[in-house]
């Protein structure tokens, strides 16, 4: 709310700056705008930027750092807080203080000490807001003055404005890098905390996974063990089943569409695959849990097999269907990129279409197809909703597709949904799993993108 008011104020000031700058520029040449270096509106933008940008910057910095500063100052004034107080305790004290500040002193949680802290909190908040308002206004006005002062016939307003715009454009392309840094740092930071509690080798090579930890000392519960091998095995199993469906179907349909299909069939097949690609994964998950899993179990029981109700097979099959369009569109691209001359050569030697495809086109397109399949595998490993809804929770170390297995993404969701404590290894384990997931998919992607790029070069 506060942020909106301040932003709107700054924008209004910038608008005033725009009109002032424009009129000033026009009047500086006596209305004969041909004498100016740039168009009048560029002078307007120039002053508007002088007026708005510094103030907006202050606003942003303020709203990022203000809560941290005030929180630490308030906590500093609470005498019971020492260096040893745990972060959870600190958070509780803070929320109590804020609650008292918002609802008055006659609440049950209010102790004299907290009331003092709450008053300090209110004071600090008010002081901060006033300081911000004053500094924004003064910066805006100083900017306005500087901007209008420098306006003259010689000022190259357009170049100045365009320089700023260029920096803004550059800044928005850096967001992609910031995102990557954010992902890596958040995963690394929490994962390192996790490995501080659980040895790295135990996590990577342990074969038992039961992350439930006793909340209180006297509670009967397991100690919690974090051996991730069953999870990796489960992820691999489900991904393998998925690829067993997706690769043949995707590849064959791509071959059919690019080599055999009449335009009519293609006009029908392409939308079908696009529909499959556009369905949200949560829908696939519901479909897997509602239709496929019971069907798989019924068929299995018909053959006298014991099938878990959340079998890896069901989740893998549905995931495979989800990935079909992915494989087929990537293979379609690379198959089309194979030059016609190679095919013509094969036909000239008397090869049939299928012989040409199998002996000439596919070998030529193989690197691209391998790259596409690798991308598809990374997609399967990172897929979440299907396995959350259709695969199991228990970490079984098995290769039997009829058993229930769990995956890294399922565990991440179960560990992080609900109440979290960022001190317990249970929560941090999710970040360790996330780090492994990120690294594996990153490797697959980098290699796959390289392979595909190299392949493209070959025929371009």
């Amino acid at each position: 709310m506060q942020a909106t008011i301040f932003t709107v104020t700054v924008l209004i000031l910038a608008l005033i700056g725009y009109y002032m700058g424009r009129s000033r520029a026009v009047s500086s040449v006596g209305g004969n705008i041909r004498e100016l270096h740039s168009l009048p509106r560029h002078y307007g933008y120039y002053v508007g930027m002088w007026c708005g940008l510094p103030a907006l910057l202050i606003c942003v910095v303020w709203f990022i750092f203000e809560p941290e500063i005030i929180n630490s100052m308030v906590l500093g004034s609470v005498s019971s807080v020492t260096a040893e107080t745990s972060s959870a305790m600190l958070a509780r004290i803070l929320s109590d203080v804020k609650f008292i500040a918002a609802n008055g002193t006659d609440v049950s949680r209010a102790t004299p000490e907290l009331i003092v802290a709450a008053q300090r909190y209110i004071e600090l908040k008010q002081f901060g807001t006033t300081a911000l308002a004053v500094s924004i206004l003064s910066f805006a006005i100083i900017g306005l003055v500087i901007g209008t002062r420098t306006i003259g016939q010689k000022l190259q307003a357009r170049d100045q404005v365009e320089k700023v715009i260029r920096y803004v454009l550059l800044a928005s392309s850096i967001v992609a890098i910031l995102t990557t840094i954010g992902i890596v740092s958040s995963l690394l930071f929490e994962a390192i905390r996790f490995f501080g509690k659980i040895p790295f080798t135990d996590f990577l090579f342990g074969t038992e996974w039961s992350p439930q930890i006793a909340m209180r000392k006297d509670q009967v519960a397991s100690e919690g063990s974090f051996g991730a091998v069953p999870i990796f095995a489960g992820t691999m199993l489900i991904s393998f089943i998925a690829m067993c469906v997706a690769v043949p179907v995707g590849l064959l349909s791509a071959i059919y569409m690019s080599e055999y299909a009449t335009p009519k069939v293609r006009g029908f097949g392409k939308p079908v695959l696009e529909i499959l690609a556009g369905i949200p994964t949560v829908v696939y998950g519901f479909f897997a849990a509602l239709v496929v899993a019971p069907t798989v179990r019924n068929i299995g029981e018909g053959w006298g097999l014991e099938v878990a109700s959340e079998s890896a097979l069901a989740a893998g099959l549905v995931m495979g269907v989800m990935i079909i369009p992915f494989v087929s569109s990537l293979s379609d691209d690379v198959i089309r990129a194979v030059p016609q001359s190679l095919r013509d050569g094969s036909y000239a030697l008397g090869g049939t279409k299928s012989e040409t495809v199998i002996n000439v086109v596919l070998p030529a397109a193989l690197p691209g197809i391998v790259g596409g399949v690798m991308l598809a595998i990374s997609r399967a490993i990172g897929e979440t909703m299907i396995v959350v809804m259709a695969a199991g929770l228990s970490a079984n170390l098995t290769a039997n597709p009829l058993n229930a297995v769990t995956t890294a993404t399922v565990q991440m969701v179960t560990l992080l949904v609900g109440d979290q404590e960022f001190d317990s290894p249970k929560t941090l384990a999710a970040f360790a799993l996330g780090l492994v997931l990120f690294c594996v998919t990153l490797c697959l992607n980098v290699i796959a993108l390289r392979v595909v790029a190299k392949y493209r070069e070959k025929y371009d």
Partner: protein
Amino acid sequence: MTELKESMQKAQARLKKRHAAETRFKMLGAGALIFAFLCVLMLFSSIISNGYTGFQQTYVKLEFYLDEDVIDPEGARELKTLQFANYAGVVKQSLRTKFADVKGRRDKRKLYGLISSSAGYALRDLVVADPSLIGTKQTVWVMASDEVDMLVKNVFDRNEDESTRPITDKEIAWVEVLEKEGRVEKRFNTNFFSAGDSREPEQAGIKGALVGSALTMLVTLGLSFPLGVMAAIYLEEFAPKNKFTDLVEVNINNLAAVPSIVFGLLGLAIFLNVFGMPRSAPVAGGMVLALMTLPTIIIAARAALKSIPPSIMEAAIGVGASKMQAVFHHQLPLALPGILTGTIIGMAQALGETAPLLMIGMVAFIADVPGTPFDPATVLPVQVYLWADSPERAFVEKTSAAIMVLLAFLITMNALAVLLRKKLERRW
């Protein structure tokens, strides 16, 4: 002569074999395509067959005696008394009079279970709107409970053994009495579109999730569209060819393939824990999804900008425009259809995304419809996930119905993208 004939025959046989192999291969390809088609068909048919009944709701007509002693014993007609009166008692009273022969506590509780607990609220609204109704007998259509609803929709089999279905023979007998008197009716389920989430299947609606989705998408669009377009303009038109630009490009390509759940972890660790954003709020969800759709938009926008012939830029610069002016006045408007197409596809992806939102707490049970992006909310796909997890049979049709709504939105968006591409995109 015989030799030639023999080799001819051999060649004929081989050719036959090769042609058979050819046909087999072709069939295999067609089979793959048919398999994909069957998957689509199965998916849609199972969703639709489970879900179309979700747009209907069973109502029961009952006479209610709005007893003054129960609702407003003091007769002051104060709003507060009227609002908090025991309407559930009125409903129970009405059921007891209708089925006077039901005795025993357990049976009575079963009897009350025929009618949704929302019936009391319906009566309250009636009385609050017109207090003069107190003391009169009113005939009102009220919602049936989810179990009766399932029975009327033939989801529960009446002829099945009692122990295998969730509704007892006695309850079925009561429902049949009501049906015979014409007191049971299926109507279009307006509640589904006008109510928030609820633990009771018959009262649950998707309005909260729809509004939550809309708010989240608003945040996502507001962030990712300008950022994506600006980044694309920089990379395509201004960026110098150097290591830094390469780094940005590699980054964007990799981000496009990072699993969506990892973005959720980013949101949890940075937006929620470091910046202290509200949990479960569309603003945090929208930011996470914006980062996720950013690569899609950047890649689409770059492709659109690239497809514009350089002659346009050269002409603009030739008549004295700066490069910035040439880009913003000429390149960008011409590329806009392509950029919009990419944006719509990116937004459709974001609309269907669930996993990262689970990470930032948008799975909480929230019955209220959110008003601002800072209120706790849920989104449509997460609502689907939540309902899919609920044990009540009636939630299966709600889930499927919600999926149908979600798919309708996605199909509309994708159709819009195709239309835009066909209508506006120019081939140079």
